[in-house]
């Protein structure tokens, strides 16, 4: 439990202790109030998805008076030619593709940087770190031209194939750090047993790097699932839309009849990330401690 590590020494005298207890109660109250404010938009979204048209627009309440699933039906089938299920499928395909591509390519790259000696390694490592802070917006125009030349526009390829080439420098760096933490004696023992660098990768690094792979997989999934910018640029026919691009169709939704479905689909779109949060809560929170990953 995250408890006092640097608190004042526990007072034992009466009045001071009472003062301390008041402070504790005040602090706890403040935390609860702040949590209520912070979580309100999420709870309100969940409630609004269940509210009928007449209740939605300006209703502070977190309890729908006449809960209905109508919004989910209307939202799911609301588009003319394509259902929201299609968007979910597209999002899932892209996110899973990115997860697999990132895990494989970043681990291979990180192994080279962390364990093998070869000429120009320092230079390449510096180049890799250099791309770490490179905003994606800077490269989007020439990359678009490249993928257009390849005929990949309006397919998932521009969103997945670059990840196969370890372009997510962040995860490469994360894995380099992780592999450096694996004792070198393991490699040397494997070497003595006749393992080549490939054998060491296969029998030492891959099994031991599992925690780093899990972190990479989770954050790859969440970031890809939430990504809007690149999907907006590369996908332009409704059949290929992902969930965020599908949701975009709701902007400027004025009529009450489209607000309900909008909330229902928004709520569903948060589902996968929320499930990850429930399942890997500890790992996610610890993960950003160990790596500085942003959510």
């Amino acid at each position, binding site marked *: 439990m995250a408890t006092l590590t640097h608190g004042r020494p526990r007072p034992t005298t009466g009045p001071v202790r009472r003062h301390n207890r008041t402070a504790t109660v005040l602090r706890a109250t403040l935390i609860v109030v702040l949590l209520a404010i912070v979580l309100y938009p999420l709870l309100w979204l969940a409630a609004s998805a269940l509210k009928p048209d007449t209740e939605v627009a300006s209703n502070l309440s977190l309890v729908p008076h006449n809960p209905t699933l109508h919004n989910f039906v209307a939202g799911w089938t609301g588009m003319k030619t394509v259902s929201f299920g299609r968007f979910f499928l597209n999002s899932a395909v892209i996110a899973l593709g990115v997860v697999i591509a990132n895990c494989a390519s970043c681990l291979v790259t990180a192994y080279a940087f962390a364990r093998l*000696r070869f000429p120009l390694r320092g230079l390449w*490592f510096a180049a890799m770190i250099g791309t770490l802070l490179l905003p994606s917006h800077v490269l989007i125009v020439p990359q678009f031209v490249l993928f257009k030349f390849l005929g990949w526009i309006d397919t998932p390829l521009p969103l997945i194939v670059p990840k196969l080439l370890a372009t997510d420098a962040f995860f490469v760096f994360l894995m380099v750090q992780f592999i450096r933490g694996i004792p070198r004696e393991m490699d040397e023992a494997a070497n003595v047993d006749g393992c080549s660098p490939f054998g060491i990768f296969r029998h030492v690094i891959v099994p031991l790097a599992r925690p780093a792979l899990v972190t990479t997989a989770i954050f790859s999934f969440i970031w890809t699932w939430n990504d809007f910018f690149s999907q907006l640029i590369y996908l332009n026919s409704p059949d290929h839309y992902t969930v965020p691009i599908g949701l975009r169709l709701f902007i400027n939704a004025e009529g009450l009849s489209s607000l309900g479905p909008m909330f229902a689909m928004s709520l569903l779109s948060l589902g996968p990330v929320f499930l990850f949060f429930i399942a890997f809560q500890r790992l996610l929170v610890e993960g950003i401690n160990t790596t500085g990953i942003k959510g």
Partner: protein
Amino acid sequence: MATTQATARRLPDRDQPRIPPRRTGSGAVRRRETAAGYIFLTPWLIGFAAITAVPMLYSLYLSFTNWDLISNAGQYVGFRNYVRMFTIDPTFWHSVRVTVTYAVVATPLKLALALGVALLLVRARRGASTARALFYLPSLLGSSVALALVWQSLFSRSGVVNEFLDWFGIHGKAWVNDPSYVLWTVVLLGAWQFGAPMVIFIAGLKQIPAELYEAASVDGAGAWRKFVSITLPGLSPVIFFNLVLETIHSFQIFTSAYIIGGGQGGPVDATLVYTLNLYLQGFGQSHIGYASALAWVFLFVIGALTVLIFSTGRFWVHYGDGSDR
């Protein structure tokens, strides 16, 4: 994973790979390792060349042309794009103003919230880890289109925020439709995601030795004095780390401004942030020459900003090991 402090204290680009020299190594062994190294590095090398380096150079070239995406034609125009940006195009300066306003307000606000809640939680006993996780939740969900849509509804004329204000007799505005307020709703959406830096702050606070606080108590220091003289300096590497990341992050804001601004940076360009302007120029009007010039200026500004923060870091970041790098 024990990399916490390594990453928090030292930003990545200072971290060079260190491999202890091996005792011996015949030429053959070394050659084999070189070959293996380059085999393992091949995917990254291809990616670096094809997805990053060459496109960067190509974009530099494009920025000196008036290339058009639709006609796929254009010609060399020298520095005209850059001149137009700085001297003729009012939209450019407007988008710079919007972005800087956003970053200058949202970043400190977010970090202040993160630090404040971290200070509350680090002393909490029961339920602290649950509370920490729940405060972190918006950081996972907040950058999505869904939350931007929720925000748009919350702050609309008949939205929940106004209904709440009505209780106090305050007559709210149509926040998201009013050019003078809409950006602040985007700022609030950014600040709402304070959970990620908060978790990093909590970890940093736990690293500060308890003896320092005890010694200060003996010397009669009050809570504020301890905060200023112990907590802030002790936390400065973590504050620095968060400041760098969050600043760079906030300059790249796109999704929330796009959605809340109705896809065009509206109303009246009030949410036309830099990246959105770049997007609309390049992909809305297919002026990819001009958009490339915008991208290079953006890269330059982000780089300069990072260097600036790093150079001020010398004056206020204290490392526990006594090396004020």
